Each structure stands twice: as structure tokens, then as C-alpha cells.
């Protein structure tokens, strides 16, 4: 319709400019319009009424239209020069194109699109190059070469190839035939920029149904990269469902066939976020299968499960506990952790004014002089617990080292309640004040040896840190049933970013009991009591509540504490991808970035093949080193990264990566129209439905890429102008008759 009214497609106007071929200045047109409107107003608006204003408007519009036509408007647009340009047709040849929608596969629909007369006719005006792409991109002679068997879809790589080809041949436009199911995480900004630089429009033709039909899919799953043995692990799962709204589905986490956790979820018919938590197993690399059970009538069940790696650390983090006076909490905390193979508690206790008692030390000289006097000595620990110790017992440099222990070293620091702790210990002032997750009262006398009952906050009910029982509701009830605490300490409000996981009620008030927050690279927490030992002494000796609480809390403190070398990879599971990217952050003993290290990765590939890759320093991030490596075969890879400075080893760390094939194409099988539309819009192209072949064929010539000519066409004589003139005159005539103005 648009094209019939204006004699040109919309693209011509969108890409072109409106010019006036009369050569008369545009301001004169505007002046003439205003003058004529004024003359008409003097004549028509002698009587002020709404009806006359309407009549005047119609007359003025008609006159303005006539004047506009006199000025000879035209559209000037850049168009491809016939027989001088190439049109690149990119055809998605991945496995997802073999899916059938409405009884026909997507690849067949693409073949049919190519065979449409309008598209086939393009070759009369342009050279047409066909490419197929999936994992890689290659030229093909005709559509018969399409197989729809590629294990991944890399639209970005295919477009990069076209952009590279455009340096040598005049590519006027790209036609992309795809379902948009890109498995490389989308088309990068660099790719779009390269195309824009060459002004190559990408016209996308979308294939496949735009909704999933009746399907449940694990759209995403995230588990921590590494945890300590026995830790509570929380898996965050994005579940996409359609056609099953209100139905119940069972989510399960398995490790080598053994069920770690399982629970029912109610499907919302859209994307929903679910969490499922479980206890990490023994040390080692665990390959977790996160799955939702197939439902009756579900079309695609291959997208019901994903694989994730969970590295359960074999290291045993060391936590330093400094206590200022003999207390029952000290004893029972130690007992709770002593049987934990994943944690090591080293403690110093001030038994008298001048004596300290050390427990859990590795050698007789450890902590011989008391609390570490240098950051290097303190930073050997992964976590720090500060009990009833007056803050003045620490020197100023020790206080600053404690602050940096969390902020820079990335350790976890827990402050306990006590008669010389928190506000009563002077922690509301000095360097340590800012690392506390709670405000502290500006007075003493906040510690009370009176009973307090503990219960979970709303945030605590969802947190694995305070999870004593798997089921959240039963867990909250378990907390409510705990014996009363022996004492409590008043604190203030939580600071921004802090989370109160547990509260306590005492003396008619409710106060924070356990608050946590991330501080710098580390974590801090306050447990505003020294009376959890009652949970041990007031319950059956077989009850493990007290032990579970402390082990969970201390694991939270130290699980994320980095070593001097921290290895990472953006994806632990490479689905139909071969590029293994490694990143290492290297620090010295004081945890300052070490930009002068020699860093290499020893990669153990499937089949026992070993390779060594050197990591290069990143110029803009001191102490960060990166490398890329080609993981050619499917299977598990272990990369151990070792950093040295001269002869001294600064540290080492390892990452595990799983490469799997034939998985990605089972996910997101509906057409990703959003991706195709944004890609087209970003490059100056358009999105087309397969039925719009002729429209595409007529619009494709308007491009600024390749070899172009400037086309200028009159628009004063288009049907739209005549129609507008007729409409304004007819409307005026009809209204005059109706209102009696003859």
C-alpha cells in the first residue's frame, strides 16, 4: 500500500533524503504557505466558530499541498548499481534448522525462500553469493549443499567473514536466513560496528515458530565455581516453560547418577528463577546434571537437562580465631569445627594478662608472638574470628591489617559478641568500624548476660548460610525451636548492602543476631552473641545443629577467599565451543597485584595429553594474565595455572572445564526474532518474514555499501498527493453542505 501511494518502498524514504527539484528556496515555500493561510483566514474566519476553523484548515491544507507540489519534491536515495554488486546470502545450516514447524523443516523453508521468483530474480541484477554457517562459515554453490547438521550457530563469526570479504569485493547487502538460535552468546558489538563501518545492511529473514510450543527448558543454571567439602551449595536455575502453566515439574540435581537434591516446582508458563540447594560432596571435580523431568506432551526433551561443573576444593582453609578471655563459646566453637575435615581453626586465647594459649597451630613458632604483626603473616589465613577482645589490644597497624584482610586479601572476618566486643570493645571507632555490617551504639553496656531467642529473618529463610535442614520451612521452624542463647549484644541498624540473616528477641526487643555483607574483596559478619554454646549443652549430644551452624557460617566466610593465584574461565562448560579462555589474577604475599610474574597453564586434555600455555599480562589490569587455547576434543580439561616471580613460586590454582558437543542446538529452539531484529536494525537492514520475499527483493537495492548510484525520483506526482488534494477538497465540500455554508 505504502509503495503504491508513494511509488517507492518505505526503505527508500527511510534511507533517502527529500529534496526539492524546483530550485526555489524552501523558506519561500514556508512563507507562501503562511501568506496564503493568512489570506484565507481573513476571508473565512470573519465569524469566529469552530466550524469555520475546520473549513479554514482544510482550505489551507489544500493550498499548502499545491504549493508543495509546485516546489517539486523528490526522494534522493543511494541505491546499488545493477551488475556491479554482490548480495551475500548467509544461510543458517545448524541442527536447529532441521526442526519442523508446521510440518516443514526450517531449512526447507529457507530453500523455498531462496527459490521464490523475487529472490531468484536478484541474480539478474546482482551477483549472489551463498554461504552456509554453523560452527564455521563456507561458500556454497547452491541450496542443495545445505544439511542443517551443524552443532552450533555462530552468526557473529559468519558476519565477520562477510565483513572481511567486503574488503575485496563490493558486497552491497547481506541477507541472513536463520532462526536466530545463536549459541555463542549473541552477536558482538565489534561485529556490528564492522558492518556499520562498511555500511552493509543485514536483512534478516526469520525462520521457525516464535514460541516454544509445549516445552520446559533449563534456560540457565549457575552453581558456584568452587566450594569446600560439605558446604551447602545453592544452584540458581532459570526455567522456561510454555504450554504448561500451573503444571508441576520436578527439578533434580544429580552427581554421577546420585541424587543430590530434588524438589517440585509449579510452572509459570514463562521464565522463572528457581533455587535448589544441596550439600557438596567430597573434594574433587563433580559433574552435576541439573534436570527437570520431562512432562507428558512435551515436544523437545533434550533441553530438559544441563551439565555444570562443581569444583569441591581439596584445600583446607585456615581460620584464625583470636579470643580475649576464656569463654564457653570458644570451647564449643572449636569443638564444632574440630571434626570438620574442610576447615582448620587456629586460635589464640588470652588466658591471663600476659599469656596466650594457642591451639590448632601448624608448627611451634606459629603465632608465638601473639596476633600477627605484619599483613603478610595475617594474610596466610583465609578467615578471621574476633571474639571478646578489646579493640585497643590491637595496635593501629594491626587494626588496619585486619581491615585490609577483608578488603584487599579477600578474607572473611567474623565479629562475635562479648563483654569486650563490638560497641563495648570500642569497635565502633577506628579502621575496623567501616568493615562491620551493622552500625554500633555509641555507648558501652551493650552486652547482656540474659537469654535471647533466635529466629531467621526473611532473608535468612532463603539463605544457605543458615540452612540447618534442607527444607526452608522446616529449617525456619528448627531455628524457632533452638534453645535460648546465653547472652546477647545490642547493635544498630544494618548498613547499606548488609543482610541480616537471623534475629534475636530479648527484653521485649528484636535485634540483629547474624548480619553479613561483602566488604571489598572479602566478607564480614557479626554474630551478636557469645551464647550459641547453649545449643550444644541444651540439646541431645547427637544433635548436630550447633556443629552445622558453625560449619556453614565458617564455610561461607572462607569459601570465596582467594589464594595468591586465582584462575578463572568465563565458561566452565563449553557447549559446542572450542575456545578455552583462561584468566589468572596473581598477587604477592601482601596481596598486591604482581604484574612481573611468569604465569603458565599446564592443561591436561582428554586422553591424558598435556600442553603448556603461557599467559600474557593484560596491559590495563596489573596482575591479571590471560590466554586462549583451542580445546579440540570433547571431554574434561584441567588447567593448572602456576605463577612464579624469579625462582619463587607465588602460587598455583586450577580450573576444570567440560567441553561437550551436540548440546547447544537443543536449547532455545524457538525463533530468536529479537536477536534478528536488533541485528538488522543495528546495521540499517530490516527483519522480514519468509513470506515477504518480494518485499525484500524490492528493498534490497537501497544500500550505501558496495557500488552505488544516487537515484532521484519525483514524488509531487505520486498518488498520495492527488488523494490528499481530493480528500481536502471533498471534505470541505461535504462539511459546507452539512453545515449550510454554501
Amino acid at each position: 500500500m505504502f509503495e503504491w501511494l508513494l511509488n517507492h518502498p518505505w526503505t527508500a524514504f527511510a534511507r533517502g533524503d527529500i529534496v526539492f527539484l524546483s530550485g526555489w528556496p524552501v523558506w519561500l515555500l514556508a512563507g507562501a504557505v503562511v501568506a496564503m493561510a493568512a489570506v484565507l483566514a481573513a476571508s473565512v474566519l470573519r465569524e469566529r466558530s469552530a466550524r469555520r476553523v475546520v473549513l479554514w484548515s482544510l482550505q489551507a491544507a489544500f493550498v499548502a499541498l499545491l504549493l508543495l507540489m509546485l516546489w517539486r519534491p523528490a526522494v534522493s536515495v543511494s541505491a546499488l548499481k545493477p551488475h556491479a554488486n554482490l548480495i551475500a546470502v548467509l544461510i543458517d545450516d545448524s541442527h536447529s534448522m532441521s526442526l519442523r514447524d508446521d510440518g516443514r523443516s526450517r531449512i526447507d523453508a529457507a530453500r523455498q525462500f531462496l527459490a521464490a521468483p523475487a529472490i531468484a530474480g536478484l541474480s539478474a541484477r546482482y551477483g549472489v553469493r551463498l554461504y552456509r554457517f554453523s560452527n564455521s562459515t563456507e561458500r556454497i554453490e547452491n541450496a542443495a549443499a545445505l544439511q542443517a547438521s551443524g552443532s552450533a550457530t555462530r552468526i557473529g563469526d559468519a558476519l565477520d567473514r562477510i565483513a572481511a570479504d567486503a574488503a575485496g569485493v563490493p558486497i552491497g547487502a547481506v541477507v541472513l536466513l536463520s532462526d536466530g538460535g545463536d549459541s555463542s552468546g549473541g552477536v558482538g558489538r565489534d561485529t556490528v560496528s564492522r558492518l556499520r563501518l562498511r555500511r552493509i545492511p543485514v536483512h534478516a529473514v526469520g525462520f521457525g515458530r516464535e514460541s516454544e510450543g509445549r516445552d520446559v527448558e533449563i534456560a540457565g543454571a549457575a552453581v558456584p565455581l568452587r566450594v569446600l567439602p560439605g558446604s551447602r551449595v545453592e544452584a540458581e536455575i532459570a526455567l522456561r516453560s510454555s504450554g504448561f502453566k500451573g503444571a508441576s515439574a520436578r527439578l533434580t540435581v544429580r552427581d554421577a547418577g546420585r541424587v543430590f537434591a530434588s524438589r517440585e516446582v509449579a510452572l509459570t508458563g514463562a521464565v522463572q528463577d528457581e533455587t535448589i540447594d544441596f550439600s557438596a560432596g567430597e573434594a574433587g571435580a563433580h559433574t552435576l546434571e541439573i534436570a527437570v523431568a520431562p512432562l507428558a506432551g512435551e515436544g523437545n526433551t533434550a533441553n530438559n537437562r544441563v551439565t555444570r561443573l562443581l569444583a569441591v576444593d581439596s584445600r583446607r582453609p585456615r581460620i584464625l580465631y583470636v579470643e580475649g578471655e576464656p569463654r564457653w563459646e570458644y570451647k564449643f566453637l572449636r569443638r564444632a569445627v574440630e571434626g570438620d575435615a574442610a576447615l582448620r581453626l587456629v586460635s589464640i586465647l588470652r588466658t591471663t594478662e600476659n599469656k596466650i594459649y594457642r591451639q590448632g597451630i601448624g608448627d611451634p613458632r606459629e603465632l608465638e608472638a601473639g596476633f600477627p604483626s605484619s599483613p603478610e603473616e595475617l594474610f596466610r589465613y583465609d578467615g578471621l574470628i574476633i571474639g571478646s577482645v578489646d579493640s585497643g589490644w590491637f595496635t593501629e597497624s594491626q587494626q588496619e591489617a585486619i581491615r585490609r584482610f577483608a578488603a584487599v586479601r579477600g578474607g572473611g572476618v567474623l565479629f562475635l559478641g562479648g563483654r569486650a566486643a563490638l560497641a563495648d570493645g570500642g569497635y565502633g571507632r577506628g579502621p575496623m568500624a567501616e568493615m562491620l555490617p551493622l552500625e554500633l551504639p555509641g555507648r558501652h553496656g551493650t552486652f547482656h548476660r540474659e537469654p535471647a531467642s533466635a529466629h531467621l529473618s526473611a532473608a535468612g529463610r532463603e539463605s544457605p548460610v543458615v540452612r540447618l535442614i534442607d527444607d526452608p520451612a522446616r529449617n525456619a521452624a528448627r531455628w524457632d525451636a533452638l534453645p535460648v542463647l546465653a547472652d546477647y549484644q545490642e547493635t544498630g541498624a544494618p548498613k547499606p548492602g548488609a543482610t541480616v540473616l537471623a534475629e534475636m528477641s530479648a527484653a521485649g526487643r528484636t535485634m540483629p543476631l547474624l548480619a553479613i555483607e561483602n566488604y571489598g574483596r572479602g566478607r564480614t559478619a557479626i554474630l551478636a552473641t557469645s551464647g550459641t554454646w547453649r545449643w550444644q549443652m541444651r540439646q541431645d549430644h547427637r544433635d548436630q545443629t550447633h556443629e552445622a551452624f558453625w560449619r556453614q557460617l565458617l564455610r561461607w566466610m572462607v569459601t570465596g577467599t582467594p589464594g595468591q593465584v586465582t584462575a578463572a574461565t568465563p565458561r566452565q562448560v563449553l557447549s559446542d565451543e572450542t575456545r578455552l579462555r583462561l584468566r589468572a589474577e596473581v598477587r604477592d604475599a601482601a596481596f598486591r597485584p604482581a604484574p612481573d610474574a611468569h604465569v603458565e597453564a599446564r592443561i591436561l586434555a582428554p586422553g591424558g595429553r598435556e600442553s603448556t600455555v603461557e599467559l600474557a599480562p593484560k596491559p590495563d589490569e596489573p596482575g591479571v594474565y590471560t590466554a586462549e587455547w583451542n580445546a579440540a576434543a570433547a571431554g574434561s580439561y584441567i588447567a593448572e595455572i602456576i605463577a612464579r616471580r624469579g625462582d619463587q613460586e607465588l602460587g598455583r590454582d586450577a580450573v576444570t572445564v567440560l567441553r561437550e558437543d551436540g548440546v547447544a542446538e537443543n536449547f532455545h529452539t524457538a525463533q530468536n526474532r529479537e536477536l534478528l531484529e536488533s541485528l538488522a536494525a543495528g546495521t540499517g537492514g530490516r527483519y522480514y518474514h519468509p513470506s515477504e520475499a518480494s518485499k525484500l527483493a524490492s528493498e534490497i537495492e537501497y544500500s550505501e555499501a558496495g557500488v552505488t548510484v544516487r537515484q532521484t525520483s519525483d514524488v509531487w506526482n505520486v498518488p498520495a498527493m492527488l488523494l490528499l488534494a481530493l480528500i481536502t477538497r471533498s471534505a470541505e465540500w461535504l462539511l459546507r453542505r452539512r453545515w449550510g455554508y454554501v
Partner: protein
Amino acid sequence: MRMRYSSVFGAAAAAVGLWGGLFAYQQVGFRVPTEYDNDGAPIPPDANATTEWAFARLKYASGGHRWYSARSWVVDYPKADRQFVQGVRRLTRIDTCSGERVIDLDTDEIFYWPWVYVVEPGQWRITGAQAARLREYMLRGGFMFFDDFHGTEEWQQFMLGIRRIFPDREVVDIPDSDEIFHVLYDLDNRVQVPGIQYWYSGRTWERDGIEPHWRGIYDDDGRLMMAIHHDMDLGDAWEWADSPRYPEPWASQAYRDGINSIIYAMTH
């Protein structure tokens, strides 16, 4: 006739007196009440303050043929407790009150006090329910300090109770290397600490308990659950530490031994 009645009454009175005297002698033994007695301990001003630790004395049922057997848990009470606490306060950083607490074994009160003192356990008579409570107490982490019983006969009575508490656990001599002898004070050179019967007898031992024994029972993780001070009397040493007649070295060792046990209980 009168004379005869008088003679009869006199003879009877003499017999009763003689019997009573012999009975009293048997019961008291060499222990003679002196001008010092337990009733003289004043109640300190903060005796009832709520603190981290307090001297918790176990109140248990007892029996036997000694003069104090019927209420043996009160021996040295409360002066020994209060004087010992003064030492704990002065020599350590433990937050404690000056008064003692009496813990009735027939209640669950003991679970609030992870360290308890038991005097004269050679006289105790504990029921099955009480034994179960004490077993549970120690398995949860409680610590018992036994003191002031002597000789084979009292050991056997003590062990009757222990066998009810822990039928399968062995009572062993605590090795010198154990932390309980080093946690604050090094107590490698320990000697027998006598009660005040030493003033009269000149002996450091009582009955056939010539050699002192530091014994205990360990839990499955190698931690002492109890410290058994057999053939010594630390309670007397604490109680009479303020007397010039009681030798200072013994009093000092008694304090160090008691304090070590508390710190051990609060750290293990």
C-alpha cells in the same frame, strides 16, 4: 534399792557415753573440729552476679559410715569455693562471680554449667537416671572435677557410680604430657596435696591412699571429660589457703591444678 537403781542408770549412762564416744571417734577419725569452720565464709557482694563461669558444686545423694557421709557434697562448702574463685579471678581473665552455685543432680540445671566440682565422690550414691544425666552432660561437652576422696574403699564406691555413667569407658592415669597439666601452668612436678588432717596426723595421705592419682576418662576425640583427683584434697587446700598453718606450696599447686582444669574445660 536407790543405790542399785543409781548404779544401774550410771552404768547405762556410762555405757551409752562410751558407745557414743567410740562411734563419734570412728566417724570423725583424726578429723577434729577446730576454731576454723566452713560457716565462717562471708557472702561476697557480687556473689549472685551472672558471669561467664561460676564455681558449680554438684549436690548429690550420699551414704556411708563416716560422720559426713549423709551430706558429703557440702564438705568444705562454701569457703573453699569462694576462696578458690578469688584465685581464679586474680590469676586469669575468666569472667567470674565471687559466689558459688549449687547444682542439684536431680535437675537439668547442670547443663547450664559445663564445669562442675564434685567433692567426696567416694560417698556418692547415684541412681540410674542421675548417671544417664551425667553421661549426657559429659558427651555434650561438660567437664567434671572430682576431689577429696581417699583409699581403696572410697575408690570402689566412686567407681560404682562411674560404671553406671560410663560402663564401657576406661578410667586411665592422665599422662604428664596431657594439656590439662600445661594449658596455663606447667604441672609436671605434682605432689600429693593433703587435707588439714595433716595438721594433726603429720601425714599427707588418708586411709590407704598413700600415692596421689590424677586420673580421667577421655571422649572419642581424645578430650578429657573428667579430672579425678584421688588421694588428695584440693578443697581443703583452697579452703585453708588463708591459714598460716597450711603450707603454701600445696595451696599453690591446688590453685594451679584447679585453674588448669577450668581453662582446659573452656578450651577442649
